[in-house]
């Protein structure tokens, strides 16, 4: 593999990990709120969270382009702080985050729903505040599901293509991910040149998902 290919692999792993870290606190919070409470507009939020799974990725990319473009509501705001999003590595991170968010929320939500509510209730009768119940009972018992959700989100981000291509473009050395590079090689009729990246992309995602499966099936240590 060439130095450029290694750089593409490393860049993809970094933005995928970063996007997963960025969505983790929000995903956990929304999943917990959906799983544990009834509130006005809950169904609407649940539906909105799931949208990136079903809306065509290029359409999501276009929406992000409109939001984060220089004249977009978020883009103009971030521009004031000198943060350029579109056609930068930040756009790749945003696209990966948005596209993998539903997987994290769905998996974490299931994990929270599987935590026995009776344990939380008894913790409250033992004097625990809501924050302590969440920190010492709910989160530890849901942790394997949350980790599995984060792994799925990372794997999804590794393979993200459509939204990224629209919002970040295909810029060598700047926004080039494994998926974008494979696509570009195919467009140039250099299918063979794309094979090492294809292999690495499959290998990384395979190992990641395998680790996720092992973690989610392992019995809690304590």
């Amino acid at each position, binding site marked *: 593999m060439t130095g450029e290919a290694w750089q593409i692999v490393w860049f993809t792993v970094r933005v995928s990990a970063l996007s997963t870290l960025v969505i983790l606190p929000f995903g956990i919070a929304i999943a917990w709120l959906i799983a544990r409470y009834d509130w006005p507009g809950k169904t609407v939020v649940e539906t909105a969270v799931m949208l990136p799974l079903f809306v065509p990725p290029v359409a999501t990319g276009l929406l992000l382009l409109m939001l984060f473009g220089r004249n977009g509501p978020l883009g103009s705001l971030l521009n004031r702080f000198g943060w350029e999003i579109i056609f930068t590595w930040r756009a790749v991170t945003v696209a990966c985050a948005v596209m993998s968010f539903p997987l994290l929320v769905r998996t974490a939500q299931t994990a929270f729903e599987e935590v026995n509510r009776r344990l939380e209730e008894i913790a409250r009768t033992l004097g625990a505040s809501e924050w302590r119940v969440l920190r010492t*009972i709910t989160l530890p018992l849901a942790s394997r599901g949350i980790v599995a959700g984060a792994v799925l989100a990372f794997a999804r981000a590794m393979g993200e293509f459509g939204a990224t291509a629209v919002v970040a473009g295909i810029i060598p050395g700047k926004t080039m991910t494994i998926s974008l590079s494979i696509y570009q090689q195919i467009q140039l009729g250099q299918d063979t040149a794309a094979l090492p990246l294809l292999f690495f992309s499959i290998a990384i995602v395979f190992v990641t998902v395998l680790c996720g499966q092992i973690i989610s099936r392992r019995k809690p240590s*304590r």
Partner: protein
Amino acid sequence: MNLVLDQVRVRLEGFTLEIDATFESPVTGIFGPSGSGKTSLLETIAGLRRPIAGKAKLNDKILFDAAVGLHLPPRLRRIGYVPQDLALFPHLNVEANLLYGYRHQGAGNDSLTLKHVVEVMEISDLVDRDIRSLSGGEQQRVGFARAILSAPRLLLLDEPMSNLDSRLKTRLIPFLQRIRDEFHVPLIYVTHDASELTALCDEVLILERGRLLERGSPEKMLGLDRVNC
């Protein structure tokens, strides 16, 4: 102990629990068929269910008052609750389970130390163990000890021995008597088992379909001779 449930009404599936009663005995038994509202009554006292009407008071502390919209959260009630399934925290070891409520409510009470409670409940050798490695009887005693260590003003026990065989029940009844005699914690004890009521309770309330049918001594209510008390 003086627990007053003043025309408390709780909506349940299919019927409404309506209780107007005062609990003053050291150990009060609640007896009644399945689905009569016994567990819901305990959950209401513990603050896990919100009544639709009435007023509840434990000693001088208002637990619930529908007229002013007051519902004291469970964590501020200092009412221990041991449910039927015990609800021991599976990811914590025995010691961490025991200390879960102790740190916040029990500390400062000199007679209520971890050492003393585990000795009385005969679980000193179990403190480092994994919860899932305990036998049914051991889990039961850990459940009782955890609730006691939270220094409750009232302890609610919901059929705590329903999953145990009769031999194990006989061995565990003395531990419940120790809770009553050693720690002087008032108990409300729900059970289907007449022998548990006669061994432990000063008074028994008969509950049927959410209504209090009658109350009196265990002998009178169950038509049995009192044993082992």
